[in-house]
């Protein structure tokens, strides 16, 4: 039946109330006098109910946390990475300030406790008098050794076996320079390097 074919195309939309008002009326008028189209419409309705009842509820436990984990694994945009880097730096600066404060407090306490003894340590160190004396002693020994070596040389043969130091000059305590004008000799002493 031509009318049934035409109405049949609209039956689903009629069931879904998705037709225009005049189309809804037209289909309703036809259904009132057509058993086969009424049967089809009933089947559509049953089909819809069965589809809804057969649809299993998907297991969604852990779904959102899985999505968050996947988003976290994404490569971050440059601006986001810079922001994160700056935030980490700010966190470490905060931590560094705390450690710095603690270190400063310890330093202040140490200074207060050590002040009475400070003078005892004032003269010590690489430039202290003891150190210079030791250096000069070692220098003199070295000069003697050089003089002895010089005396043993055939061209420089001399009865005098030890050096006659006429002038000691040095601006640097770790380097000593002796001049012996009569022998036309200058000795430069350097300490052994560690």
């Amino acid at each position, binding site marked *: 039946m031509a009318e049934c074919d035409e109405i049949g195309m609209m039956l689903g*939309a009629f069931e879904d109330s998705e037709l225009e008002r005049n189309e809804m009326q037209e289909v309703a008028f036809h259904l009132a006098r057509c058993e086969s189209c009424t049967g089809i419409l009933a*089947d559509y309705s049953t089909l819809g109910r069965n589809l809804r009842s057969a649809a299993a509820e998907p297991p969604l436990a852990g779904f959102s946390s899985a999505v968050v984990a996947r988003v976290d694994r994404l490569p971050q945009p440059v601006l986001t990475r810079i922001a994160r880097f700056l935030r980490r730096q700010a966190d470490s600066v905060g931590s560094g300030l705390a450690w710095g404060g603690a270190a400063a407090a310890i330093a202040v306490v140490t200074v207060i406790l050590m002040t009475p003894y400070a003078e005892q340590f004032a003269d010590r160190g690489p430039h202290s008098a003891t150190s210079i004396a030791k250096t000069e002693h070692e220098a003199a020994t070295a000069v003697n050794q050089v003089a002895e070596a010089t005396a043993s040389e055939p061209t420089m043969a001399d009865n005098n076996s030890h050096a006659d130091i006429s002038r000691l000059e040095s601006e640097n305590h770790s380097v000593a320079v002796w001049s012996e004008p009569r022998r036309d000799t200058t000795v430069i002493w350097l300490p052994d390097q560690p």
Partner: protein
Amino acid sequence: MLVERYQRRVVGVALAVVHNQDDAIELAQETFVRAYENLSKFESRSSFSTWLYRIAANLAIDFWRREGRHVVLHGEDADDEIRRLPTSQGDSFKEVSRIELSARLKQALEELTPEHRAVILLREVEGMSYDEISDVLQCPRGTVMSRLHYARTRLRNILKDVAAS
């Protein structure tokens, strides 16, 4: 949380196309990741939910085509298919047992193309209007109507055969 608000329906949209729960859940998760990545591209011409469901539908249809499980009918091909359907009328399939019906429905749905399955499930299970389906699947409203008609007629005939046997 945004994910929890939309997750069920996003899974439903993906499931309507691929008709496999594990694949649908995987695709739904991918949908949210894609949405997060492309949030700046979202334009408020459509609602956020429609935009989200559209991503889900596109991912699911791409997935289905990539898997190559079924031949997809479009436009006139689908209409021709409708005309070739037998015009059974009158009988119902109410007597078929629920379990058998459920199994047969699942099988019948798998025999549909993803486009036809999507429209019938988005309408009947997800309760979307024709306009919503049109937005999500990005096809004209008339195509939604013709696909729905095809899907209903096809499913009805398959299930009627079961009832008759």
